[in-house]
């Protein structure tokens, strides 16, 4: 796909397209909770605003689609948490992990993640392998990139039928 050799990843990085594009519709790769009309949420697992909004968003009627939008410069732990959620998702527990991470924001270091994995009855060895895999990092980055192209500049950003409904209320 890309030229082989040590320079290939850098070239791939440089040629990505970040020009404006609508929010992709819900697809087979998406993490979807419940059914019916609903919303697409770009959220950061390290973001306190997202944590505060998550309970409300996920309790509402209809579908909630979670898309990864980790802002690592602001929340350095976020990439690891998104990878953990994705790895839990590979064992069928994506939203359980997201709920738990948002519910206990003070307990997000590795030992706390392992405790969650055991509590959820997941395979810890597999979780450890998966969360560090290139595939998981790429999966998280793909969501992030669609958010950038859709103009997401803050989290949580909630879209309905691909139209931006609201970004969290802000002070100025």
């Amino acid at each position, binding site marked *: 796909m890309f030229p082989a050799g040590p320079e290939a990843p850098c070239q791939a*990085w*440089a040629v*990505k*397209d*970040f*020009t*404006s*594009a609508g929010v992709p519709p819900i697809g087979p790769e998406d993490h979807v909770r419940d059914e019916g009309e609903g919303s697409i949420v770009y959220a950061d697992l390290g973001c306190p605003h997202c944590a505060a909004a998550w309970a409300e968003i996920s309790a509402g009627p209809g579908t909630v689609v979670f898309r990864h939008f980790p*802002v*690592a*410069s*602001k929340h*350095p732990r976020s990439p690891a948490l998104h990878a953990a959620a994705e790895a839990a998702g590979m064992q069928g527990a994506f939203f359980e992990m997201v709920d738990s991470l948002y519910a206990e924001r003070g307990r997000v270091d590795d030992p706390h993640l392992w405790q969650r994995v055991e509590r959820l009855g997941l395979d810890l060895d597999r979780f450890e392998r998966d969360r560090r895999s290139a595939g998981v990092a790429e999966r998280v980055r793909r969501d*992030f990139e669609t958010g*950038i*192209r*859709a*103009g*997401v*500049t*803050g*989290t949580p950003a909630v879209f309905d039928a691909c139209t931006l409904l609201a970004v969290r209320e*802000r*002070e*100025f």
Partner: protein
Amino acid sequence: MIAAGEPAPDFTLRDQDGEPVSLADFRGEKVLLIFYPLDFSPVCSDQLSVYQEVKPEIEARGVKMIGISVDSGFAHKAFQEKLGIDTPLLADFEPKGEVARAYGAYLEASGHANRSLVLVGEDGSVEWAYESPTPLDIPGANLIFDALASS
């Protein structure tokens, strides 16, 4: 607001470390000037943090980013550290807002710049300029890539 095709007014401002930075230093390179209202307001924090996440892609297109607000260099230093960003932040501090005024990005009633982006070309002329409808609206990073794709 300044428009594409106009010469970008030169300036020399001090950065977060007190070092003078002039627009003329970047002649031969593209520079994106990011005017924003104030350090430590939640909206700005999101804007510069999100731009930081795509900084490698912006730089891969030969563009340097610079943030400018009316805050002091000391505030800029703390703000950079809080956000975990390394985009230089220039202090448009004294005379207050002089550079923002020169670019037509200053809001007199509020005493700070509006949220505005100005892409300065290699020859020192404005290639693209964007002013947010209000300081609460953050221009997405996608707009920067749109401008670079068409410039």
